[in-house]
């Protein structure tokens, strides 16, 4: 049995250095993702800058006039607003100085006082609304993604199951429905036809916002309908995406081979099929995060949820320039951070990333 003339090659020789090749590969990957994160934030903020500066109208004077038309604001207050807005909008000084002041404000999370809720700073308003939106979006996104991927994976693997086929048809019909319509239908059904759930607000009005049992229950109750509308829309597209991925993965050699080798079906499904469809599905999640606000804004508006979506819409109606810019910036940051987190989790699912 000594017929093989060549010396034995160990895998260890493929790994080298103090850290080892995989570790270096991982760090290089993290570096690339961080650079991409910085680029997204940079381009996003610049887009906001260009859009506001390409406008033919002066948003500062327009905002001021919108506020003053409501009634008697103290002249000093108006001056303070004007200064803050001028700085934010940067109409004074050279173009370069304007651009730098803009960045200074943004990096300092300082958007000045809100005009519609004077003199509360914009950052305070956003800070108050952010946990509501973040909680709602994170939970509903994870539930929709997890549930959709699981069911879609099953549907792709058991292609002859009646129930899963039916689910596919429902998903196909549900997936293209605009958020607004679905939210409205839920509102009508659970608000008017069968009023069992609260249809407006983030918690019951009469409860103090402290961490009591009643408050938590109230928050959860109020979150059901907004979350349900986001989940119902989301599940459909994740279902379809995962089903398509899985029906491609099942034809891969390693799946066919495992089946031929008599590996148990549930093991083939979980460790071979689902496991290999998951990385691209996770990439899909990262790609979709940019669109997450579309749903959030509408849902929050329909259900009167006290998140940044409602804040944004009300700010536009009230002509609150600082607040609109603030929410836009925060949403760009929020989505970029979400994408970065997913990117950093990705190598856990796909070991190949470390070398490529």
């Amino acid at each position, binding site marked *: *049995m*000594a*017929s*093989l003339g*060549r010396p*034995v*090659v*160990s*895998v*260890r020789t*493929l790994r080298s250095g103090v850290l080892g090749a995989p570790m270096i590969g991982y760090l290089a990957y993290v570096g690339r993702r961080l650079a991409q994160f910085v680029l997204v934030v940079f381009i996003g903020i610049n887009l906001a800058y260009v859009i506001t500066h390409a406008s033919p109208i002066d948003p500062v004077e327009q905002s001021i006039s919108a506020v003053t038309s409501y009634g008697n604001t103290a002249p000093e207050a108006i001056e303070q607003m004007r200064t803050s807005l001028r700085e934010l909008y940067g109409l004074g000084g050279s173009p370069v100085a304007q651009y730098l002041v803009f960045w200074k404000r943004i990096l300092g999370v300082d958007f000045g006082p809100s005009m519609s809720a004077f003199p509360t700073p914009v950052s305070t308003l956003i800070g108050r609304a952010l946990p509501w939106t973040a909680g709602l979006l994170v939970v509903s996104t994870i539930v929709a993604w997890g549930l959709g991927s699981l069911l879609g994976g099953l549907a792709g693997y058991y292609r002859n199951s009646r129930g899963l086929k039916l689910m596919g048809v429902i998903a196909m019909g549900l997936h293209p429905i605009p958020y607004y319509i679905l939210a409205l239908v839920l509102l009508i059904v659970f608000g008017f036809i069968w009023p069992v759930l609260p249809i407006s607000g983030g918690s019951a009005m009469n409860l103090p916002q402290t961490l009591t049992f009643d408050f938590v229950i109230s928050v959860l109750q109020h979150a059901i309908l907004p979350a349900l509308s986001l989940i119902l829309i989301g599940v459909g597209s994740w279902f379809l995406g995962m089903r398509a991925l899985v029906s491609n993965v099942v034809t*891969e*050699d*390693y799946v*066919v*081979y*495992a089946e*031929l*080798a*008599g*590996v*148990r079906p549930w*093991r083939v499904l979980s*460790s*071979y099929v689902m*496991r*290999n469809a998951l*990385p691209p599905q996770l990439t899909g999640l990262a790609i979709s995060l940019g669109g997450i606000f579309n749903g959030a804004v509408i849902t929050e508006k329909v259900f009167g949820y006290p998140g940044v979506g409602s804040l944004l819409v009300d700010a536009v109606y009230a002509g609150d320039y600082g607040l609109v810019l603030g929410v836009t910036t925060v949403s760009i940051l929020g989505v970029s951070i979400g994408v970065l987190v997913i990117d950093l989790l990705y190598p856990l*699912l*796909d*070991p*190949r990333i470390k*070398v490529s």
Partner: protein
Amino acid sequence: MLAEATQAEPPEEAQPVLWVRDLKAHFRTDRFGIKRVVKAVDGISFAVRRGEIYGLAGESSSGKTTLLKAIVGAVRPPLEVVGGQVDFAFLAGYGGLHRAPPAEVARIRWRHLSYIMQGSMNVLNPVRRLRSAFVDFAYPHIGGSRRQFEREVVAHLARLKLDASVLAAYPHELSGGMRQRATIALATICRPDVILADEPTTALDVVVQKEVLGMISSIRREIGSSVLLVTHDLGVHAHVSDRLGIMYAGRLIEEAAKVEIFRNPLHPYTRHLITSLPRIGDDVSREGLVGAPPNLADPPPGCRFHPRCPLAMEICKCEVPAMLETAPGHRVACFAVNRSEEA
């Protein structure tokens, strides 16, 4: 050592362990109104003896892989077995794995019959370490404690000159040759009676090819498995096969002991294959075959080789020649050859 392995003659009277009888496996498709039947395997009979390496040769798309799929029971639409049977010494009464109940199939596969798939670059799960493949594939058959199992796997790897560290590696961390050798280790860990190997050396460089072939013959010697080796590469067959079957367009056209086939090829197609092998010191220019291999969706009637055959007669165009024994152990399907033998 290698030379010794190839010289060893298999016991001539050994019992068959795998019989294929008049097997027909077709692809049937119906898409956008176009119905097609591709007769990839169309009436093949042969037997593999215990402990031998039976080689199957033939150009690409002659139905070799489909034949293996039908034997291993990997029959799912659009592939269908439309006739004939496959019998194993360790599985009687069903006429093929594709007809056996799932419990039987689960018992047979890997324990008695294992398979080395073509293009082994992609047969290992890319997101899991090799250890898990061994556990998934072999642990249900071998059993015992996990630690015992691990010891057995490491011992098997050592026997095949592989370091235990491959178990901790992901497939992409291994070179192509290493991956192929790991796959072969995976296919042989349960010491199966029959190993079906589909192009195990294709796409490997020559040095690694030699290692892999050495591995296959030493497995045969150590474990006593029979190997059904499929490759288009006659050089590989010359190296390790004991007997050789030649396929053309979904049919077996000649079968004999390896040396006999190389010394005395009878079928015009086999003769063409053998004479077109390059030899050192030989500078005679070679004649190519006219025409191309037939489209299996619409094969020519009669002998499928007749449009390209230099010896074609009228009968070849309408009747299918049977496999007839011209000498002990030498079968050939050709009217021209069998007629002249009779005369």
